[in-house]
């Protein structure tokens, strides 16, 4: 009997000692790169980064260290520093609010490269921090392409008599719906380019936009989609990271254009297409340059050309001829023949603010007699004040990393888009 107890004690001691040994043995040779994700894989936004990061690390034969659920607080700095402690040669963080904390880590670990998605400061406030980088992609071009897919679908629906009276406004325009996270340049640029894509096929469209005030809120996103559908939206898209809106659309059989990746598996009947940033090319470039000891761009904007901007698979219910049309538009975007924010394609109404400086609209914009944009002072240095004219050669020059920055700065409210609410 005593023997039995001794056995248990012995076993427990073995477990403890082996555990201690294993703790020492976790560090492996080979190069390591770290990814800091705001949420985990259940968020489509983070899943997109995680997928690209794993693929890039596999392709470049380095070890991926992925930490998930890191909030935009000092915990982000500690996570970055911890990855550097573990010997990671490069660290990438995926959320806008991570920026200040990553920059802080960069200033402490001079021999580690830090990159940050969607950030704005690498060429401005942190321009002297050589190992701190920003990255984004011309996702507005992807949104535009996804808008073209939606426009073709609308065209088909109208031809088939599926657009009902409730789907049109008083002027006979077909209503679209969009769920956004925050009233923030990245979101505004996204829904405007999507809308312009739809409009390039179906000129008679208007769009309602509702905001959730969160990047990830399944309930609010679902409610937002239902509000828009009840308001008559014939087709929905979104810029928020949960399955809330696509699922609500599937339940009510309203076509949906998704973001960050295909939602066809869960929404087979209503999923049309999804634009996404493919981060793999950037990650591979970052790993390659870092291992070679070379410096790489302070600010980087991936394009269709670099493989950074992609459309996911087409849904089974897209209109006939979609693929051909998309190939054509894509070629035009690549060659520069077509610009998403071509100022002749949309109009802007400028409302001067009242005496208290409130209720102004599109301040900083200059328009001609027809309402077409001729100049716009955008905030490109990240201080939330317009500072640089970004309209030239007849188009709004979005996400120009060489001249301005990669993170979007298109925050105009163009005609035809109606904001149901405003959330910062």
């Amino acid at each position, binding site marked *: 009997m005593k023997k039995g107890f001794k056995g248990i004690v012995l076993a427990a001691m073995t477990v403890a000692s082996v555990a201690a040994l294993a703790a020492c043995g976790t560090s492996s040779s080979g190069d390591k790169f770290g990814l800091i994700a705001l949420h*985990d894989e259940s968020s489509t936004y983070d899943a997109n980064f995680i997928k690209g990061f794993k693929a890039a690390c596999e392709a470049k034969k380095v070890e991926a260290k992925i930490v998930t659920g890191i909030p935009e607080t000092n915990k982000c700095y500690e996570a970055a520093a911890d990855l550097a402690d573990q010997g990671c040669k490069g660290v990438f963080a995926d959320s806008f609010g991570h920026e200040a*904390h990553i920059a802080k880590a960069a200033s*402490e670990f001079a021999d580690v490269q830090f990159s940050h998605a969607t950030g704005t400061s690498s060429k401005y406030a942190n321009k002297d921090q050589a190992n701190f980088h920003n990255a984004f992609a011309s996702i507005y071009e992807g949104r535009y392409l996804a808008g073209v897919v939606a426009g073709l679908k609308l065209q088909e629906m109208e031809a088939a008599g599926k657009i009902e009276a409730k789907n049109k406004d008083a002027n006979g325009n077909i209503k679209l719906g969009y769920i956004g*996270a925050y009233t923030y340049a990245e979101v505004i640029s996204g829904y405007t380019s999507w809308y312009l894509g739809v409009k390039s096929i179906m000129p008679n469209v208007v769009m309602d936009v509702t905001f959730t005030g969160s990047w990830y809120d399944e309930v609010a996103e679902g409610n937002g989609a239902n509000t828009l559908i009840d308001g008559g939206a014939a087709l929905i898209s979104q810029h928020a990271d949960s399955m809330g809106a696509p699922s609500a659309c599937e339940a009510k059989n309203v076509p949906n254009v998704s973001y960050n990746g295909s939602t066809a598996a869960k929404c087979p009947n209503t999923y049309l297409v999804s634009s996404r940033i493919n981060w793999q090319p950037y990650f591979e470039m970052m790993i390659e340059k870092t291992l070679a000891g070379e410096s790489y761009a302070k600010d980087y904007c991936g394009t269709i050309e670099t493989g950074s901007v992609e459309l996911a698979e087409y849904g089974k219910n897209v209109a006939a001829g979609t693929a051909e049309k998309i190939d054509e538009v894509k070629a035009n975007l690549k060659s520069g023949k077509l610009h998403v924010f071509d100022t002749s394609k949309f109009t802007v109404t400028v409302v001067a603010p009242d005496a208290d400086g409130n209720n102004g609209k599109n301040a900083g914009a200059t328009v001609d007699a027809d309402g077409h944009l001729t100049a716009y002072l955008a905030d490109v240095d990240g201080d939330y004040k317009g500072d640089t004219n970004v309209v030239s050669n007849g188009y709004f020059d979005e996400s120009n990393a060489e001249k301005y920055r990669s993170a979007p700065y298109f925050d105009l409210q163009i005609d035809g888009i109606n904001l149901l609410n405003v959330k*910062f």
Partner: protein
Amino acid sequence: MAREHKEPLFHIVKRMNMGGTSKVAIRIVSILIGLIIGAIFVVALSPTSHNFFGFFGSMVSGISSTPRRLWLFLLEGSLLLGVSIALVPAFKMKFWNLGGNGQILVGCLATCAVMFYLGGKLPDPALWPIMLVASVLAGAIWALIPALFKAFFKTNESLFTLMLNYIAAILIGYFISLWYPTGTGSMSPLPHGALPTLGNTPFGKYFLPTIIFFIVAIAIYFYLRFSKHGYELSVVGESENTARYIGINVKVVTIRTMILSGALCGLVGFILSGAVHQMMSVNMDSNMGFTGIMVAWLSHFNPAVMILIAYFVTFVTRGMSQVNTDFGFTDEKLSSVISGIIFFLLIASEFFVSYRIVWRADIQKVMDKIAYPFVKACDSTDSLIKTIKVKLTTKKQPAKKEAE
């Protein structure tokens, strides 16, 4: 044929006179079972590694392999201890303060508001006391509101404090968007008002914020154990009528105790926003207001045990996040479930500390055989401890006599 009246398979009996060692042993065994279940799941489902013992290695390395990890572990455990200790006076009074999260958040808000509005206008050392007073006051007020309603209108404090959590989070969101109108609901660290540190190492940054809650824990222990206030609130908790009968003003005690509870949560907010983060966010409380309840209950309000439990909970959360990274999980569902299983088993062990299962005679024989070495070992440890205690006391006595 008449049906034979069968003895039930088992029945449950309240335990009497259980040895201290057995109590500890039951808890340790249940934690070990929880960890082993966790390891089995992780190893079975991991896409990258199938090393069973690696699970324990990762858990341990998550809290200890570098000074940074060790200090973050110490800091987070201490913050959780601070929240747990803050909840104790209220719970002892049987006032169900579920508003820890909200009270922490308003503490963060008050701290940041001082840093935001007065930062740069006053020198930092002048800001610190204002931040401290503002955060403690804010937490106290956030607890005072439900206490007043409970004392004067008999409202349900659980619901009331719970609702105030949401209001606090929304207030934080509101102020962030007020200060940074075109952002995305997050803010950068504030440039002024960071609390002093002992240098830029993990030790330097986190030693002071860590130690403060140990001091608070000791202070609250003495407050509850030896002060008149402490006695009064435990009487109110046992029976309001008795309290009234012996001349305790229940309303005053309720309000006073809740102010203390809220003020301490506000202090946690002060440390979080002033020392650790220099900013605030809507989920800066990390849900400690609820985790703290578990810690407080499991420790039976004993501060020494509370330290152990707070650090065990922190070990599990930090360890599991390291397991996630090392075992290639990029989804937190599994780690949440495993943490849940471990905590559930720890809570369930309380049942076996208080009750005993008595099996049907034939099964009991087998069970006794299985349990025998365990019981025997616990008994011998108990008697060993007793002998040591006796020896110690007998040694002391002659010394006393000499002094006389």
